[in-house]
């Protein structure tokens, strides 16, 4: 006869086993589809580039060196890889700008939806998700149609006589930013809405009652309380933005590259897979560090106000 304690122990063991079994499919997918390829990328970054792409199985740190330094093709001297830095800086800047811009546009939008009646909220959320139905490439081309020199903005402004020459918007950083803001806005609005929906609006009334102006209520009450949504939305926008590939290649033309385009170049025309792999790992590390810093700074408790 098993004692009660033994039975309980068995039940506990079964519970643990079940938990592992149930999460097994997800774990296998993560292991095979995410960690595995990542390890391969890491491995490739330490190999030698093959002449027609691919890699030769020979250890080399050349890939990693080329991330930061350039080898002169004539005298073999090393100099700082300023092109990479420019591209990296552009990626980071555009991703941050896109995150801030989606936050600026998304915050009032989410607030608006959260303050509607229960039934109309669903309609608004539905409208927000409509762009997701369309392929990213098609959406990006739609932006292109709007901002190109013969697009509706320029033709409209010329017709109205405000300008006589079309404003060059396409193939600039501005174009990339507009494209990313348009594409990633729902990713900001949805988590913001989720935390605003939970917001107790009586706290807003309490704030007004205690002499806080609208701006102070926003800053001191609403914003701290929806901070989890702001953090989640920013992460959801920042990560795909810094790795954006389609948007910069369509709207930025060939010259305004972002990091993803540079990596693609190494695996394609550049035929330098180890460099591409090393760049991939670099950008991943940078994103991780950036997020750690961001999350740590924003999730800290209510700062002391003086």
């Amino acid at each position, binding site marked *: 006869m098993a004692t009660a304690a033994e039975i309980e122990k068995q039940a506990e063991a079964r519970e643990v086993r079940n938990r592992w079994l149930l999460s097994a499919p997800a774990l296998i997918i993560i292991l095979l589809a995410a960690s595995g390829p990542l390890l391969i990328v890491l491995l490739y970054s330490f190999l030698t580039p093959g002449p027609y792409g691919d890699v030769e199985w020979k250890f080399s740190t050349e890939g990693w060196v080329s991330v930061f330094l350039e080898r002169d093709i004539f005298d073999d001297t090393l100099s700082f890889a300023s092109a990479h830095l420019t591209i990296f800086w552009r990626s980071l800047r555009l991703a941050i700008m896109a995150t801030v811009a989606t936050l600026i546009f998304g915050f009032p939008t989410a607030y608006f939806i959260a303050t509607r009646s229960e039934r109309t909220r669903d309609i608004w959320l539905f409208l927000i998700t409509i762009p997701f139905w369309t392929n990213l490439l098609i959406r990006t081309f739609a932006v292109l149609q709007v901002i190109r020199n013969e697009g509706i903005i320029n033709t409209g402004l010329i017709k109205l006589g405000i300008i006589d020459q079309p404003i060059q918007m396409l193939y600039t950083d501005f174009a990339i930013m507009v494209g990313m803001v348009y594409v990633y806005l729902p990713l900001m609005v949805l988590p913001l809405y989720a935390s605003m929906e939970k917001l*107790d609006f*009586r*706290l807003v*009334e*309490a*704030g*007004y*009652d*205690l*002499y*806080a*102006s609208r701006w*102070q209520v926003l800053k*001191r*009450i609403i914003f*701290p*309380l929806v901070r989890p949504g702001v953090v989640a939305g920013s992460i959801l926008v920042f990560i795909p933005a810094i790795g954006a590939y389609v948007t910069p290649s369509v709207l930025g033309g060939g010259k305004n590259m972002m990091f993803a385009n540079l990596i693609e170049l190494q695996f394609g025309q550049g035929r330098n897979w180890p460099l591409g792999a090393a760049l991939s790992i670099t950008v991943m590390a940078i994103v991780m560090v950036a997020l750690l810093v961001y999350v740590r700074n924003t999730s800290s*408790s*209510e700062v002391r*106000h*003086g």
Partner: protein
Amino acid sequence: MPDTPGKNAIEVRGVRKVFGTGEAQVAALDTVSVSIRENEFFTLLGPSGCGKTTLLRLIAGFDFPSEGEIMLYGQDIAPLPPFKRPVNTVFQSYALFPHMTVAQNIAFGLEMLGKPRAEIDARVAEMLKLVRMEKLAKRRTSQISGGQQQRVALARALAPQPKVLLLDEPLSALDYKLRKEMQIELKRLQHETGITFIFVTHDQEEALTMSDRIAVMSSGKILQVGTARDIYDRPAVRFVADFIGETNFLDARIDSVDGGKAKVTLKSGATIAATVADGFKPDGEATVVIRPEHAKAVKGTGDISGVVENVVYFGTDTHVHVKLDDGESFTVRQQNTRGAMMEFERGERVGIVIGDDAAQILKD
């Protein structure tokens, strides 16, 4: 001093509040006028949906009246946003800021008023002491009990020294014992701070025990304003008489009216003296109210008579439910005293003696 007319802190003049539009329009407040005196503990009493909270929200500034004026010491505040009114609210749900500590919550209003840090700190300490929460100043509001949250909400609302403090059913979430404690605490705070309190409740006992004056509300209207005594002893209309305490209603014919007094003849033929509600217009018929404790059941004949239906013993007193000869019900509450206890049996015929000044004639 409830009966000495002082300055008016709040004057509500002909305020209407309509929610919705067109067909779905509802008048939450129907042309309400009331004056609330300085340093008064004023209670808005009524069942849920009577418009008491709406009136409070109009004074606080969370809603704006459809018509009428709200004067605060002679200045019309109706168009001002809530953050420009020197009025603070204790919310039913407390609405404490969950991302701040107890002390930060209390300091919030003072910070928003732009007070210097030293003054804020001193005032917060003073408030914490006033509500006896010094030890929990650094706690998060989620880490303290309901009663403590209530105290913090009070301290937060009192800290900026408002001209008027609005309390929206602040005790309804507390259990019975704590509620009793907080009732005393609230009276103490009002006394110590000298701030005008406007208290909203649906609990008649709470209203009677705490208030200097009470306004009884029903369906968006104020039916009667007066001291607890006025409201209880001299209800003007049937709703007030019925809502507060237990009451017997009797139909009567008016024989004569002389000032505030009248002689009425009951259906039983007995003639009794009764007080008349203000604004009563005699037209022969009237309803008379008699509180159960103002009547006495006797063996033999009284002013009216009937048959005992039920006797309920409550310890301190006994309720005798009598079916009157004309078919109406009448309840008598007698205090139990040792020795001279009068026992009644079910089915026994009893007479009911109505005391002098016991009867009150209603306006409606």
